[in-house]
């Protein structure tokens, strides 16, 4: 290739680059575990955000600019979360991020977004530290683990009347935080847990731990963690003949929980805390219907991600695409979303938490407990 040709190619590449910049669009990152053991949650986030972006674009985008989503994969690893956060801020030029999923990823990434002046709305990270850090740019459209732990603990005490509770966690920010929150409320009720231990994420054999649960004769096992460990845990618990009631949090809200457990019979009766069901939001009916028409059940955090995207769009749209002004604006304005009207307090938490108890049945589905 002659020099002239190379030069021409380079120039045309540069022009092409400039052209993409010119129709620059509003770049929004969707950061979560798109690969790895927790990829099912990444998919929920992506489906929700993708649909929201498509709907918003169809209605004219944000102030006439089209939304362009960038998929950022943190695999639920804190280190990777920091590096993709840097990438979103520096090279992708994202104005806002919907994410991350795991609290252990969201917390370190939130500081990068703060430095870069990027608005962050997480649909799923429930660890209290995330908003307690006092960063002005961080919001979440889910509840907090201290609220979730309250709901779980009062259910254990009031509804189940349990006395012997074993508390297990996965040693990760989310899992341990949730287990600690539940334990704190249980202790406040005057119930001392009979066992408090951690397991290792990624392992599949929990038999030794379960024999120990059997030996302390627990009637409730509370687990703070995600479905990939909860599945084998509950299965091995049943295989060892324990009838203890298994309760967990929003980390198991995926139908993958059933396949990881081996069969629906093992998840039958498992309780979990999660936000109020989508059917309680009349404003979400249309979107849910469209999801189902497209052959996708908007389970778990799908609608939360849709909501997060709407909040990002509202914040940017009402403030000339300025994420910092948008963050300030969010603290004093309420936004209509598919999950009803959302208001934020000065920390970035929702003013109303709506955790309720769900129960898995023998068909491998979950329903709200009345």
């Amino acid at each position, binding site marked *: 290739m002659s020099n002239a040709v190379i030069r021409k190619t380079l120039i045309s590449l540069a022009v092409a680059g400039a052209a993409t910049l010119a129709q620059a669009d509003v770049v929004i990152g969707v950061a979560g575990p798109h690969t790895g053991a927790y990829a099912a949650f990444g998919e929920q986030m992506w489906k929700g955000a993708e649909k929201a972006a498509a709907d918003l674009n169809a209605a004219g985008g944000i102030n006439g600019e089209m939304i362009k989503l960038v998929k950022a994969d943190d695999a639920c690893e804190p280190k990777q979360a920091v590096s993709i956060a840097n990438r979103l801020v520096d090279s992708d030029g994202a104005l806002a991020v919907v994410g991350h999923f795991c609290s252990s990823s969201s917390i370190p990434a939130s500081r990068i977004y703060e430095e870069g002046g990027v608005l962050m709305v997480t649909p799923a990270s429930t660890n209290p530290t995330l908003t307690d850090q006092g960063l002005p740019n961080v919001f979440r459209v889910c509840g907090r683990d201290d609220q979730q732990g309250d709901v779980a603990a009062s259910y254990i005490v009031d509804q189940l009347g349990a006395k012997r509770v074993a508390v297990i966690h996965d040693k990760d920010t989310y899992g341990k935080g949730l287990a600690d929150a539940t334990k704190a409320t249980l202790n406040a009720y005057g119930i001392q847990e009979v066992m408090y231990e951690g397991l290792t994420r990624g392992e599949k054999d929990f038999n030794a*731990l379960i024999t120990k649960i*059997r030996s302390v004769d627990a009637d409730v096992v509370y687990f703070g963690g995600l479905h990939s460990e909860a599945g084998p845990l509950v*299965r091995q618990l049943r295989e060892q003949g324990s009838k203890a009631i298994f309760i967990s949090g929003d980390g198991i809200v995926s139908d993958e929980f059933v396949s990881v457990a*081996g*069969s629906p019979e093992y998840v039958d009766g498992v309780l979990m805390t999660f936000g109020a069901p989508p059917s309680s939001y009349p404003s979400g009916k249309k979107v849910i219907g469209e999801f189902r028409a497209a052959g996708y059940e908007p389970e778990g955090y799908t609608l939360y991600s849709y909501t997060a995207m709407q909040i990002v769009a509202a914040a940017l749209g009402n403030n000339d695409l300025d994420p910092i002004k948008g963050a300030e604006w969010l603290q004093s304005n309420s936004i209509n979303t598919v999950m009803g009207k959302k208001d934020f307090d000065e920390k970035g938490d929702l003013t109303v938490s709506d955790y309720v108890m769900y129960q898995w049945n023998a068909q491998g589905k979950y329903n709200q407990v009345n």
Partner: protein
Amino acid sequence: MDIVLQQLVNGLTLGSVYGLIAIGYTMVYGIIGMINFAHGDVYMVSAYITAIAIALLTFFGIESFPIIIIGTLFLTVAVTGAYGWVIERVAYRPLRNSSRLSVLISAIGMSLILQNYVQLSQGANQQGVPTLLTGAIRFSVGDGFVQITYMKLLILLISLLGMGVLTYVIQKTKLGRMCRATQQDRKMASILGIDTDKVISTVFVIGAMMAALAGVLITLDYGAFDFYVGFIIGIKAFTAAVLGGIGSLPGAMLGGLILGLSEALFAGLISSDYKDVFSFSLLVLILIIRPSGLLGKPEVEKV
């Protein structure tokens, strides 16, 4: 009392599986002096093949459990053995006469390739296989009971059988004699007419087959796996191999059992948070006292 016995049962089954995988590390190290870091991922590949084999067999209308398990074992061991052969052919044989470091890097590369290949072809999600064998034997001990599920019994039986057959092959057959000769002195063995490349290939195939045995058993028992599942178990099995004395076949089995038992007993009687800390402290302690592992031969400098 019942709890201690139950933990022994838990540890024994876990340990026998570690032992099966450790065989792959130890045999490869014994014969060409390299640590095959892709071995954990060979185990992971076998978990996927297990699921595919079960799906295939049920698709053809086979429902009886013994036929499914025998068919799955046969298919998975064969296909995984083929993987072992190909990996050696592609990633290690071209580097046979280069420095140990290049082979090590090649092994790490192979491990990444396998993980990414499975992730791309099978998806990044958690996978599961349905439970095929349920039920358990229970013994009452004092107030409580000790139980061993039929699946765990099967794990113990098949892994003992696998180890027994392998020991026989290595000790008594012509193939085993060739392996041992190659291990002792590769150059001399090849001068005496042993096709050492072929022997090394065979060792990789045997290692992969043992990992496949463990893959089938664990996948049927726990039911859940993903493309990253080989990492932790690979590290544990490697630890077991080092503990027992890397290069020694009975050492790998012994190391696996010790590691499994120590994990189960420590997690069950003291704390599961620190079980890995305990296992690895044990490893350090044993290596301080016996630097070449429990049954390993001290390295003799060849002159």
